[in-house]
């Protein structure tokens, strides 16, 4: 029984890390510069700056990657994303995707 539980725990950990590569705790620590515009939990108080809270993980990673590559152009986000590693992007995306805010609206 104990052995079986271990196996279950391993599968659970493997399953969750496969879906989201980033670490939300590390992401929170790295989110300080983002908070000025996007709010401390990604629920931006300013109408011109998008809310990030609850946005899908892979959307956030893709957006940051596009800002860094220049595929998506924005005078504020370009210099911010330029300094982020792939790992930083994944950690930030893990943090913001787990905050509650945005919803799918049909």
């Amino acid at each position, binding site marked *: 029984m104990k052995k079986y539980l271990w196996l279950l725990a391993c599968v659970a950990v493997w399953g969750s890390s496969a879906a989201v590569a980033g670490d939300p705790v590390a992401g929170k620590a790295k989110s300080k510069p983002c908070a000025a515009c996007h709010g401390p939990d990604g629920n931006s108080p300013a*109408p011109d700056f998008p*809310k990030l809270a*609850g*946005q899908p993980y892979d959307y956030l990673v*893709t957006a940051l990657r596009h800002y860094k590559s220049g595929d*998506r152009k924005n005078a504020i986000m370009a210099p911010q994303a330029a300094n982020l590693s792939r790992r930083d992007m994944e950690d930030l995306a893990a943090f913001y995707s787990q905050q509650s805010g*945005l*919803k799918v*609206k*049909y």
Partner: protein
Amino acid sequence: MLWSAAAIAFMAGAGSGIAAEGDPAAGKGKKTMCAGCHGIAGYKTAFPEVYSVPKLGGQHAAYIVKALQAYKSGERHHPTMRAIAAGLTDQDMADLAAYYATDTPRTANK
């Protein structure tokens, strides 16, 4: 009563800084093309890259308008969004933004 309601509506419009006044009810009637992707939980765009489409429920109206304008001008270049935004007027964008910015009980969780 009607007068004060009109005054409040006017002030809200003046304060929002959005060029066109958005009507959430009108936006609801225009969202058909949006709902096919943004209305499905976990939906992913497949071209040119595979990733989840952003959630719009509760997003700032001003940001949604800005994003749609950037697609229309070509500043943002996701092919599907460019094609859709090309057919939207400023009024359409404001209405859609007002619809999605308003979080209602119709909002699906997740």
